[in-house]
C-alpha cells in the first residue's frame, strides 16, 4: 500500500485536531504575549539596597543641596534637601536630572593631556613682553580658583581672568531685607541666585519687572513694565529724575515706551515702600546710581566676607576682569568650563587673544562650548563626578563653603583642571579642598549644617576631621553675618560694552534679538530635558526663536519656518515660531552656545528666510 496525497492531508488534519487537545498551542500563545513584556531592548532596572547620599549641585552658582536616592552606589534620583538654610529644599529641572550627565551621549571620553601640557609650556616660553598666559575661570571664588591664581602668580606672564561681576564679586543682594524689588530683566524667578532662597523671600517683597519680553519672571511679577528693548538705562535715569525732582526728564521717559505716570508711580513705590532693591542683568551704572540714591547700599546690597583661605595661599595672582584686559594680549588661554556660572560670548574672549596663532586649551565635559574654538580639548569630569566647592551665590549674604562631593566615580582618562594648571607651577592641588576646610575651621566662625539631620551646629564644637567628613557628606558651612559690612566701599561696576548700546541702530539690523534660556547654554543638560524642550514646548529649544506675527511677516518667515539670524558677530540658523506676546521688532531666541556667541544677552539682529 502506498501513501497518497489524501492520506497526507488526513494525517495532517488529524494532528491539527489532536494538537488542539494538548497544552502546546495555548502555551505558545501565552508565551508570545509574555515575550512582548520583555522583548529585546527593554532594560531591567538593577535592584538593590536603597541608600541616601547628600551633595551640592555644581551646575550653577546656586549650589543647591541635593539628596540622592541610590540603588547600591548608583544614584537613580535627585531631590532637594528640605530645611536647608540656603536652597530651602528647591532643586531645578536641570539639577533634578543631573545624575544622567555621566552617560550623556555627547560626553568627552579622552583628550591629549600630555600633548597639551607640552604645548602650553612651549607657548608660555614664547610669550612676548606685553603678552600673557592666562587662565579664564568661569566660576571664580572656588578653591580651584585659588589654585589657578597661585599657579598664575608663579607662572611667567601669568594672568588670572574672571568674567565681569558686580562690584568684584564680594557683594550680595539681600532679598529678605527688600520690600520692593525693581528688576531690569533679571530672571529673578527663573534661576537667578539661589532659586529656593528667592522663593522663600518672594512672599515679603513686591516685584516690579522692567523687561521688553513677558518672561517667566515678568508673568509672575506683581507689576510688569513692558519697556522698549535696551531702554533699561533710560528707565533707570527717568526714575532717578523722579526721585530727584519729582518728574522724569522727557528724553528718557520717551525712550522707555512707558507713560510718565507709570514711571512716577514706580519711583514713588521704590522711595516710599523701602527698603528697595534695584537689580539688573548686565551691570548698568545708572542702576547702581539708583540703588545708591534709594539707600540700598548697605541695606539690601551688602558686602560679603571672603570664605577663609590658608595664609600660604595669599601670595596669588589678582583677579583680573576679562573686560579690562587689553585686546590681542593673550597668547595662551586655559579655559576651565568644567563648571560655568554663565556662558560668555566667544567674541568677547576672542578679541583678547593675540592675532598670531594663540593657544587655547579648554577643560570641558563636551565639545558643545568653547571646545569649538580650542586647539586642545581636555575631558573634565562632570557633576556629579566632580570634587569641587561652590562659591556663595549672588543672593547669599554670608560666606559659605559647600562641596560637590562625587556621587559617581569619574571614568578613567579625565583631566582635573586644577591639577593640570597647578602642575604648570608645580603646585600640589590634590588636597586643596581639605586645606581650605581646615582654614575655615581654624577661623572658627559660623555654623555647620548637616543634611542628614537637617541641623546646624557652631563650627567651634566640631573637630577638624568631623568637619571635613561632614562637608563630604553634603554638609554646608555658613559664615556668621558680617555686621561691619555696612561701611564697605562699593567699587562701581566697570561698564562692559557700552559702545554697542550707544551706537545708533544700523540699517541692516532692524530687529533686536533677546536671548532666553541662557542657563541651558551654560549648564550641561540631561537627555531627559527633552521633556521640556522637545516633547513639550514649555521652554524654547536652543536655536528656536519666537517672533511677533507682524514682525515675522515683515521678515518673510512663517510658523515653523527655518530662517537665518544675523548679527554683527555672524549668523546662525533658527527655527521660527509665531507668538503675538513677543513685542514687534524683537526676536526672542533661545540660547545655545552658538546663539550666545552671536547675540550675547541681546543684540541688533536681522532675520531672513533660509
Amino acid at each position, binding site marked *: 500500500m502506498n501513501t497518497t496525497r489524501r492520506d497526507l492531508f488526513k494525517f495532517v488534519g488529524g494532528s491539527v485536531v489532536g494538537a488542539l487537545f494538548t497544552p502546546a498551542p495555548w502555551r505558545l*500563545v501565552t508565551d*508570545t*504575549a509574555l*515575550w*512582548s513584556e520583555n522583548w529585546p531592548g527593554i532594560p531591567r532596572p538593577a535592584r538593590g539596597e536603597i541608600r541616601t547620599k547628600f551633595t551640592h549641585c555644581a551646575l550653577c552658582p546656586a549650589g543647591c543641596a541635593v539628596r540622592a536616592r541610590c540603588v547600591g552606589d548608583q544614584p537613580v534620583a535627585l531631590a532637594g534637601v528640605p530645611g536647608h538654610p540656603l536652597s530651602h529644599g528647591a532643586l531645578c529641572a536641570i539639577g533634578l536630572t543631573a545624575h544622567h550627565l555621566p552617560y550623556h551621549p555627547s560626553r568627552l571620553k579622552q583628550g591629549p593631556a600630555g600633548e597639551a601640557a607640552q604645548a602650553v609650556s612651549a607657548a608660555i616660553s614664547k610669550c612676548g613682553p606685553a603678552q600673557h598666559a592666562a587662565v579664564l575661570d568661569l566660576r571664580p571664588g572656588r578653591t580651584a580658583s585659588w589654585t589657578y591664581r597661585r599657579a598664575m602668580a608663579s607662572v611667567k606672564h601669568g594672568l588670572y581672568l574672571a568674567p565681569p561681576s558686580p562690584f568684584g564679586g564680594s557683594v550680595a543682594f539681600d532679598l529678605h531685607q527688600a520690600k520692593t524689588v525693581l528688576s531690569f530683566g533679571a530672571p529673578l524667578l527663573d534661576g537667578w541666585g539661589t532659586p529656593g532662597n528667592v522663593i522663600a523671600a518672594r512672599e515679603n517683597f513686591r516685584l516690579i519687572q522692567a523687561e521688553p519680553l513677558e518672561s517667566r519672571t515678568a508673568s509672575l511679577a506683581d507689576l510688569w513694565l513692558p519697556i522698549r528693548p535696551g531702554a533699561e538705562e533710560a528707565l533707570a535715569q527717568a526714575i532717578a529724575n523722579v526721585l530727584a525732582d519729582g518728574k522724569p526728564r522727557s528724553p528718557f521717559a520717551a525712550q522707555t515706551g512707558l507713560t510718565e505716570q507709570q514711571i512716577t508711580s514706580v519711583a514713588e513705590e521704590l522711595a516710599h515702600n523701602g527698603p528697595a532693591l534695584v537689580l539688573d542683568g548686565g551691570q548698568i551704572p545708572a542702576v547702581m546710581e539708583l540703588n545708591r540714591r534709594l539707600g540700598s547700599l548697605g541695606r539690601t546690597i551688602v558686602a560679603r566676607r571672603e570664605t577663609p583661605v590658608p595664609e600660604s595661599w595669599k601670595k596669588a595672582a589678582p583677579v583680573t576682569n576679562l573686560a579690562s584686559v587689553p585686546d590681542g594680549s593673550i597668547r595662551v588661554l586655559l579655559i576651565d568650563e568644567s563648571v560655568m556660572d554663565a556662558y560668555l560670548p566667544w567674541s568677547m574672549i576672542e578679541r583678547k587673544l593675540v592675532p598670531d596663532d594663540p593657544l587655547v586649551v579648554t577643560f570641558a565635559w563636551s565639545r558643545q562650548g568653547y571646545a569649538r574654538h580650542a586647539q586642545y580639548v581636555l575631558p573634565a569630569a562632570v557633576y556629579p563626578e566632580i570634587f569641587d566647592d561652590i562659591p556663595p551665590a549672588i543672593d547669599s549674604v554670608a560666606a559659605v563653603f559647600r562641596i560637590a562631593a562625587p556621587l559617581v566615580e569619574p571614568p578613567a582618562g579625565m583631566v582635573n583642571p586644577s591639577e593640570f594648571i597647578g602642575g604648570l607651577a608645580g603646585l600640589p592641588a590634590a588636597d586643596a579642598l581639605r586645606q581650605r576646610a581646615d582654614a575655615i575651621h581654624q577661623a572658627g566662625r559660623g555654623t555647620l549644617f548637616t543634611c542628614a539631620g537637617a541641623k546646624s551646629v557652631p563650627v567651634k564644637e566640631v573637630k577638624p576631621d568631623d568637619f571635613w567628613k561632614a562637608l563630604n557628606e553634603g554638609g554646608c558651612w555658613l559664615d556668621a553675618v558680617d555686621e561691619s559690612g555696612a561701611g564697605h566701599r562699593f567699587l562701581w561696576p566697570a561698564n562692559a560694552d557700552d559702545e554697542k548700546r550707544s551706537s545708533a541702530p544700523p540699517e541692516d539690523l532692524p530687529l533686536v534679538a533677546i536671548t532666553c534660556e541662557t542657563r541651558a547654554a551654560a549648564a550641561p543638560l540631561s537627555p531627559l530635558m527633552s521633556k521640556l524642550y522637545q516633547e513639550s514646548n514649555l521652554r524654547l529649544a536652543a536655536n528656536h526663536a519666537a517672533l511677533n506675527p507682524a514682525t515675522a511677516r515683515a521678515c518673510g518667515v512663517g510658523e515653523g519656518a527655518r530662517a537665518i539670524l544675523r548679527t554683527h558677530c555672524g549668523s546662525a540658523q533658527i527655527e521660527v515660531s509665531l507668538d503675538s506676546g513677543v513685542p514687534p521688532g524683537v526676536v526672542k531666541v533661545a540660547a545655545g552656545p552658538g546663539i550666545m556667541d552671536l547675540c550675547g544677552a541681546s543684540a541688533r539682529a536681522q532675520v531672513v528666510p533660509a
Partner: protein
Amino acid sequence: MDKEFIARGVKRCSTPRFLLWILPWLSLLAFGLYSAGLCLVKGLNQTNMDNRFAFGLWIFLDLTVIALGAGAFFTGFLLYILKLKELRAVINSAVVIGLVCYSGAIAVLMVDVGQPLRAWFTFWYPNVHSMLAEVTFCITCYLTVLAIEYLPILLRNRKLREVPSFLVFEHELHKLVYVLAGVGTFLSFFHQGSLGGLYGVLRGRPFAFREGFLVWPSTFFLFIVSAAAVGPSFILLTTWLVEKISRKRLARPAVLELLGRISGLLLAVYVLAKTMDTLIWINRTSPDAGFPAAQYYAWRPFGTWILFAEIVLFGLVPALVMLAPWLRRRTGWLVSAAAMACLGVALNRFVLTVQTLALPTLAFDKFLSYWPSWQETGTFLAVVAYGVLVYSFSFRYLQLFPEERELKAEVRQEKEEELPAMAGRY
C-alpha cells in the same frame, strides 16, 4: 487552462487576460503588505498618528468598510427571514463582499493595535462595559458565520464538487443557511450598533457623545439603520460595476430596483432619525456638557457644510431618488443615488472618527490636523486590493450570480457575434 474550474454555462475571459487584470491588484497588495509589515515590525511610529490623533485613516476605514459590508447580513435577513426571493440573485455576491469587508477590517485592526500579540486578551479578560470588546466579539463571530456561509458557495465550484464528501457537506451546510442568516443578522445588528456606540459613549468628547436608551447611545441605533440602509446600496453598486467591467448581465433590473427601494426606504428613516438626534445633541446634550455646538463648526475647515453634506446632500437626496419609482427605473439615477448613499455613510464615519479627534477639548488646546503616512495609506490600499482580488477569483470560479446563466441565454446571439472581441472581459 483553468476551464474545468469555471462554472458550466457561463463565460469567463481567457486566463492571460485574467492574469493581466489581477496583476496590478497583486502588486498593490504586495506594496500594502510591505507597509503593513513595517508597522508591525518597527511599530506604529511608522504612522502619522500621535497621542492626540490616536485614531486615523485605519479606524475610519474599518467603520466605513463594515458599514458597506452590512449588505451581507441585511440581504441575508431580507432573503431568508423576510423571504424576498428576488434577492437570491445577489445573495452570494453579498456574502463574498461581506467576507471581504469584515476580514479586511479585522486585518487592519491587527496592524492598528500596538501589541497584536496580546489582542486575544480581549477574549480572555473582556471588559463587558467596553463597546470595543463588544465589537471585537461580534465581528469575529460574524466573520466565522460569513466563512461558513461562504463555504457552500466555494464547494459548489465545479472542480470541488467532484469530491463526493464535499458535496454532502455542502448540502448539509445549506440546510443551516436559515440559522446562519438569523445568527448573522443578530450579530451584525449588534456590532454595527457597538461600532456606533464606540464614539457615542465618549463623554470626554462632547462632539461625539450622545445620550441614548439603556446602555446604548443614540449612535448605536443610527449606525444600525445607516448600515442596513447603505448595505443594499453597496451591493447594487458593486453588481452594476461588475456588470460594466465584465460586460455581462448578472441580475435583472428588478432586483437592483428592489435593492434601491429598500435602501432608499431605510435611508429616509435614517435621515429622519439622524436629524432628530442632531437637534437633540445641538440643543441639549452638547450644551449640557458646557460645549455650545456652534463652536464645533467654527474650526475651519469643518464648517456647517459638513453637517449639510452628511444629512441632506448625501442622505436625503439619494433617499428621495431611490424612493421615486420613475427615477429609480433609470439605472444612471439609481446607481449614482446608491453611490451617494455610500459616500454619505462614509462621510458620517469620517466625521465621527477624524473630526472628533481634530476638535479641541481643553480651553488651551489647538485645532489639530492629521495626514496619513504612506505606510498607513499603503495598508489601506492593501485592503482594497485584497477585496478586489478575492471578489475577482470568486466571480471567476464560483457562482456569484445564479441568474447569470438564464440572462445569458436571453441575450441575443448576434450581439455576441457583433463584437466577439468584447465578449467577456472576464
